[in-house]
């Protein structure tokens, strides 16, 4: 039971395993929900989804599965042959009613007329819907009339008009981690980065401190701990600034500055389009106060982790040629500078705010990606997460 449902969820990449299916079956066995699809939606979501980033995928899978089930409805109806139904129906009628039907030409005729009237009704509704889309003018006047007609004929609505279901509302679309970062999910992104920072701290016995404290304590043991030395996180950030990057940089900056308190050492710099022989710290002073890249390479040791943020979108010659930079004459090509970085620092990632699907269509993006050994990640929650784990591995 529910195996197809389970497989549909996996098709939509909701990470469910047998454990969760068993939990759901147990819940059904305990009759936690009963004969109510909305409740079943909530129950199955509780049992099967363990992270809000999967809520949207779950909604889509659920919707797809139940659309398939809706088609069953017609089949259930046609399960019973018409003949049988009519006989049953007749059994429920009183003698007077039977007489009346005979006078109207028999049950057959009645049903035919009923069908025909219903078909006409449906056709008219369809036509109205079409007209309604094209022009609203005649609509208002007609409506009450239509409603009246429906009431009098006693015809039911052939089409079922369901209220929009919870899972079709897609209210969790934003939490899907493959969607681009925006102010709303910046909090979630922050949480992921903070995890990165805290992987740096661990406790170990501080021998010297313990001995001193014990001695001061008159010989009674007094244990002191200290954070493990080797794991504090140090980060260098380089932001591409100017032109197309401005909109993206703000978000990234907010992100990193919010985590500034978490990182032991965080230094950030700006560059334009690609990395050359100098960078700057204050964008207003970019013409006057520049820092030579060599200084940075010398000052910050190889155990710093380096993050580049940029769209890597430029003419290819800006990377490969001396003098390729659009702002100034650079003695050495950008690619040479980047190789200096990759030689010195073990952990480098490049975060790209443009959508990942477009990367292969841009030469410069492909080149940049290769220069950082494939470690280019999109500016989404998942991309951030992956880049952070690439930095910590």
């Amino acid at each position, binding site marked *: 039971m529910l195996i197809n449902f389970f497989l549909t969820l996996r098709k939509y990449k909701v990470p469910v395993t047998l454990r969760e299916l068993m939990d759901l079956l147990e819940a059904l066995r305990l009759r936690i929900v*009963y004969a109510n699809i909305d409740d079943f939606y909530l129950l199955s979501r509780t049992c099967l989804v363990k992270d809000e980033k999967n809520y949207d995928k779950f909604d889509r899978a659920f919707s797809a599965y139940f659309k398939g089930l809706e*088609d069953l409805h017609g089949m259930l109806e046609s399960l019973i042959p018409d003949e049988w139904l009519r006989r049953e129906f007749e059994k429920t009628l009183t003698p007077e009613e039977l007489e009346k039907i005979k006078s109207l030409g028999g049950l057959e005729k009645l049903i035919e007329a009923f069908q025909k009237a219903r078909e006409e009704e449906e056709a008219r509704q369809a036509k109205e819907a079409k007209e309604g889309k094209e022009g609203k003018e005649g609509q208002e006047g007609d409506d009450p009339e239509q409603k009246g007609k429906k009431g009098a004929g006693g015809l*039911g609505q052939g089409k079922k008009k369901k209220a929009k279901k919870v899972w079709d509302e897609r209210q969790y679309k934003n939490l899907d981690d493959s969607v681009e970062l925006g102010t709303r999910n910046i909090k979630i992104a922050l949480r992921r980065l903070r995890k990165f920072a805290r992987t740096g701290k661990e406790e170990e016995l501080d021998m010297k401190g313990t001995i001193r404290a014990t001695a001061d304590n008159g010989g009674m043991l007094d244990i002191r701990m200290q954070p493990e030395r080797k794991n504090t996180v140090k980060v260098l950030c380089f932001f591409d600034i100017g032109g197309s990057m401005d909109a993206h940089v703000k978000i990234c900056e907010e992100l990193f500055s919010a985590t500034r308190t978490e990182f032991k050492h965080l230094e950030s710099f700006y560059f334009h389009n690609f990395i050359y022989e100098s960078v700057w710290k204050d964008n207003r002073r970019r013409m006057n106060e520049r820092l030579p890249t060599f200084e940075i390479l010398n000052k910050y040791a190889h155990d710093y982790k380096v993050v580049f943020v940029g769209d890597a979108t430029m003419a290819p010659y800006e990377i490969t040629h001396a003098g390729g930079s659009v702002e100034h004459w650079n003695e050495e090509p950008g690619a040479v500078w980047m190789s200096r970085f990759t030689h010195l620092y073990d952990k480098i990632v490049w975060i790209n705010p443009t959508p990942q699907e477009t990367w292969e269509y841009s030469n410069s993006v492909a080149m940049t990606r290769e220069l950082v050994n494939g470690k280019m990640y999109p500016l989404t929650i998942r991309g951030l997460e992956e880049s952070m784990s690439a930095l910590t591995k």
Partner: protein
Amino acid sequence: MIFDSTATYISTDELSMAVDAAVKLERPLLVKGEPGTGKTLLAEEIANSLGMELIQWHIKSTTKAQQGLYEYDAVTRLRDSQLGDERVKDIRNYIKKGKLWQAFESDKRVVLLIDEIDKADIEFPNDLLQELDRMEFFVYETAETIKAKQRPVVVITSNNEKELPDAFLRRCFFHYINFPDRETMQAIVDVHYPEIKKELVKEAMDIFFDVRKVPGLKKKPSTSELIDWLKLLMADDIPDEILTNRDPSKAIPPLYGALVKNEQDVHLLERLAFMNRRNSRG
């Protein structure tokens, strides 16, 4: 084959083969697979099947290989010595035996489960190489060598969070537990929840026709609610082509068959379909 599906665990042929080989050749068995595929459960089932005791060592991120062997509690000994406790004289009092030690000194052969080995430090598997190979280790504090009386059956599970070192991999047999295919899944569900579908379907029909009440249910489900519910319960029995095929007449025999298979009382079903039709036209 010494290990096979049991009443509570469905094992594929490949898995049974891997376990067989590992047990007979006395090599550790490394098991990987997606979470939820039954890796940890496997060790329990192997222990049950072979009638052996199961020793479980659940690895954490702070676990060190030494902890599996033994721990020397120096701090307590220091404190005791300040208090003048007699126990201080014998260092053996402060050696706490780890899981491997327990497994080695057992008189009968045991199953040792090292669970989630990839959680620990990257060097952790390498630190256990000699112990796993020769099944012995040296205790510095007491200058004795602990050797396994019987080689335990070692089952190691990994979630694939880290790459395991080659030297370690070479010493183990490896098996990847695939995500179960549909038949296996159905078999697993049947093992744990036999007859659940039949029960729920019959109950739904009974409640609807007021043959009985479900405790705690405030109102009877409506016809359309009940139809939706039945569809959900029985969707698996209806082949996909039928579901997507728009021609209802083709659907009748299999649907009817599916419904009848799950509900002995055909009359109840027909009544339901009739009421449904009546309601949607009313």
